């Protein structure tokens, strides 16, 4: 990430603040239902926004059958996410367009670092017992250390959902703070709240606050493995927590929706949500990442449609 961005720092846990959180579900639902209908992004603007979305993607593979070859193919797509002829037609071929990061399991970090050598695309690694987080703390911390040692510049940690569900905010804070200390200056930390596992939107808001107090650089919705992944409802609640944290501390914490985002139309809604609730800074890769794999192809197809007026075939877009 560019150095101009000042990282969020750990601050003391403010339980009073956490306990004052209020979230009304129906109001949240109404806002996310109407927001995309208030902000249609069309034509040139749509092309620009979608291209920007490309640069925010954490291009991800988190599967049991990941191999060095699979990682190489993904990294190749990360370097050249949009077909050169499309970029030429958009007249921005001089600009290097690449994704925000490549996100893999700790054991695949070295493969990715190797494949991305010579670019400034960071490798992100999930850690801390991803996806469930139900392993002993020392192992989880060791995972962070190992991923960094292998060259990861960004660590996506999962929280212990038990702490949220039982209201043990102190334990949650302590855990995330330790993760953050382990990341230190070597890596940025995205904290996955696994919102689909949490009971209420209020807990999502509270967990967001605690994660930010503990020093997270980003807060992230989901592992992609919960039954409910990144919904706009979760996104709105987390964005509002980020806003409140920013207003009170001056620190800008990033946001990463992940899981289930596979179409350009969804991305535009997420971007509009960021723009409306937080501002344009949160549309840039410094503060917005989108965890996805198949999405990139759809973005590419929409860009193709923009320049040609024809709907594109999926198999015409190079695989990642």
């Amino acid at each position: 990430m560019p150095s101009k961005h000042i990282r969020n720092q750990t601050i003391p846990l403010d339980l009073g603040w956490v306990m004052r959180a209020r979230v009304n579900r129906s109001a949240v639902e109404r806002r996310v239902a109407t927001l995309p209908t208030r902000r249609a992004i069309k034509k040139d603007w749509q092309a620009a926004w979608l291209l920007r979305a490309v640069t925010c993607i954490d291009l991800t593979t988190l599967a049991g059958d990941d191999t060095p070859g699979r990682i190489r193919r993904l990294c190749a797509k990360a370097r050249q996410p949009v077909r050169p002829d499309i970029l030429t037609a958009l007249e921005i071929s001089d600009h290097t367009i690449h994704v925000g990061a490549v996100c893999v399991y700790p054991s695949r970090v070295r493969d990715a670092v190797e494949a991305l050598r010579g670019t400034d695309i960071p490798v992100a690694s999930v850690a801390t017992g991803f996806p469930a987080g139900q392993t002993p703390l020392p192992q989880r911390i060791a995972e962070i250390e190992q991923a960094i040692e292998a060259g990861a510049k960004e660590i996506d940690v999962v929280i212990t959902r038990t702490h949220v569900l039982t209201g043990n905010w102190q334990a949650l804070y302590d855990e995330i703070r330790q993760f953050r200390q382990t990341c230190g200056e070597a890596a940025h930390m995205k904290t996955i709240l696994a919102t689909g596992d949490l009971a209420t939107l209020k807990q999502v808001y509270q967990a967001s606050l605690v994660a930010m107090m503990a020093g997270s650089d980003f807060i992230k919705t989901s592992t992609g493995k919960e039954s409910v992944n990144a919904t706009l409802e979760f996104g709105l609640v987390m964005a509002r927590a980020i806003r409140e944290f920013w207003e009170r501390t001056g620190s800008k914490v990033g946001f990463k929706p992940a899981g289930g985002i596979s179409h350009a139309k969804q991305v535009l809604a997420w971007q509009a949500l960021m723009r409306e609730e937080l501002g344009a800074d949160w549309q840039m890769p410094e503060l917005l990442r989108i965890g996805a794999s198949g999405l990139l192809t759809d973005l590419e197809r929409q860009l193709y449609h923009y320049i040609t007026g024809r709907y594109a075939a999926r198999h015409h877009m190079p695989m990642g």
Partner: protein
Amino acid sequence: MSVLQTFEHLDYGPAPESPAAAEAWLDDHQRKFGLFINNQWVTPLEPKYYPSYNPATGEKLADTVQAGQAEVDAAVAAARQALDIWANTPGQARARYLYAIARNVQKHHRLLAVLESMDNGKPIRESRDIDVPLLARHFYYYAGWAQLMDTELRDYQPVGVVGQIIPWNFPLLMLAWKIAPAIAMGNTIVLKPASYTRLSALLFAEIVAEAGVPPGVVNIITGSSQAGTMLVTHADIDKVAFTGSTEVGRILRRQTAGSGKKLSLELGGKSPFVVFEDADLDGAVEGVVDAIWFNQGQVCCAGSRLLVQENVAESFLNKLKKRMEHLRVGDPLDKCIDMGAIVDQSQWNTIDSWVKIGIREGGEVFQPNIDLPKRGIFYPPTLITNLEPAAEAVQEEIFGPILVSLTFRSPSEAIELANNTRYGLAASVWSENINLALDVASKLKSGSVWVNCTNLFDGASGFGGYRESGFGREGGKEGLFEYLRTAWQERPRPKFDLNAASERKSSWGAYTPARPTPPGGGGMDDGMDGRKSARIDRTPKMYIGGKQVRPDGHYTRAVYGPRGVLIGQVGDGNRKDIRDAVEAAHAAHTAKPGWAMRHAYNRAQVLYFIAENLDARQDEFAKRIAAMTGRSHKSAQLEVQAAIERLFTWAAWADKYGGALQETTLRGITVAVNEPIGVIGIACPDEYPLLGFVSLMAPAIARGNTVVIIPSQKHPLSGTDFYQVLDTSDVPPGVVNIVTGDRDHLVKTLIQHEDVDAVWYFGSAEGSYHVEYESASNMKRTWVSYGIERDWLDPYQGAGHEFLHEATQVKNIWVPTGE
């Protein structure tokens, strides 16, 4: 290189909806429209035209006709001619027509939305996602009631020909609210859209024809306010329905006074938006956006008065101001905006003058630093803080994107401030505490209360006002009754000289108190046993606040029997007695517990107790009736027994008319609560001195109202005897207040009293005119007899659903659920 530039800064760009189909439709009509009468376009021989403009561009869209008397007559005649067949068409057949309209609306959804936005200036998002879907929804909903009418509403008949006048802020939605229930119930209509926004109604007319609705059922005429007056005052109209300003509502009330036409009015508001400290403040901020920046704030139920708990006010207002910076004002057809154009320059001027007044009153104006289009009529979203309730800008309806904000300290103060208004259309309450939110919702005086939401509408839920926001409901089952008459009733055709009555307005009810009976003018006969010997004088007093009090004026009026024999005396009441009685009636509400706040079981017990005590004195009451009226003792006994029966009936209803769960599209609960109206003034009929009195008093108090009741002027002694029954029946002080005297003299004070919420008048045709006319001052509800007697012994005429309807007003409370 716009893609690259945008890529760096990510601005918004225009996302225009195409006007092509709407323009083509206008061209199909050569941009000149006639009147829709009998399913045909009718153009007068020498038409006067009126232009319709797009407020966002200033471009002329089309010309429409200004209807004159001949055209209004033709439209009403068409509706009249169609009425007989339509009213007698089986409900199931009418349901199919309504269903066809609903489906056709859906088929032409986008065209309707685009035309609406072009003509009115509202964002396409709103016309597309709110107005037109609700238009279809309303016809679906009332298609259902048409289907069910023949079985579920057997005691009712259509009202007849209905004249309907709608405003410019929701041309299609208001049209739906008017037309759907009317034609579902077998009425035929003549509708006049507002001058600024006539086009979508004309497009709708073609949809009606396309749906195969028989000619004359739906007639749409365009015209000025003069045409509106012609429609409203037309002798062959049976009902008038109006949505618009309170000012015009008053005029219509006066214009229709005494005519026997039914009237429903949906008027203005200054609706409170109450935010408690434990609310989801971000959610509430978004609620404010939907409350006051929906349709540019040109919404009768706009949440225009923000009340925030003092300890979160600063934080809330900061959030709100930041949110305002994100609002986008622009071309109504742009799908990337929040606010469109103001309907007309004159409305813009009104809005702007209110903002200036607000500034003069010490308000601090905040407008976000956002762009407005260079041309067209646009007003920025505006917040005025630092105002107090004493400011005019806080009290008066602005009808634009202007929010005023106040603070409060406690829930009770919030309720007091929220209710500190002449209006009562809607309210919004924000709190995460269900106990608090529902308690406040129950105490707000308004027809709709939205808990943690705002500006929600649905065909299945009634909408309408308390106080000067009007009367009658649109939507839901409660909305049917505006378009129904009970089966036994005919359209009242009051017989009186309107011109003379109109001349007599100030002298109506004037009265000179009675003097002593001249010598030889008849002896004293108490009617009980016929004794003529000297006896203890027994002159009843007024009954106010649970006490017997002497009349303020210290005058007495004689009560004569059928042969002119003096049979008793009663106090001769005056304005002060009425004033005191109204105060007492209010005190009965503010007592702890207030009469309306007592549980229904308790009110039922009181009514049963009254019946029990009346039963014990049957003979005495019967003798009195016989003495006053000259009717046989048997007939009098029958009346007393009927009165006891009636008390049982209303005791029964005391706990069986609380309301209903409305099946709206909301996930959660929408509940219609039948609330009492408040203080009701009642003038009793002469025909049944006791039964008339009981038949009116009992439903009123059963449903939680308190009353000031004027017994029969001619036969008042049953009423005054009755207070002894009340005294022994645990009736709390002030629930029933009895003032005797000259009926019209007393009613005049009641109807002019601005703290009386309704007046029921069972007197003369001319008196009915004056009551309806005078009610306009505070838009109190009235129920008058037009000088027509009813059979009080009959259970439908003397105790039907009509009484429940008149004794209550419906509040719809919307409570979304989900954690």
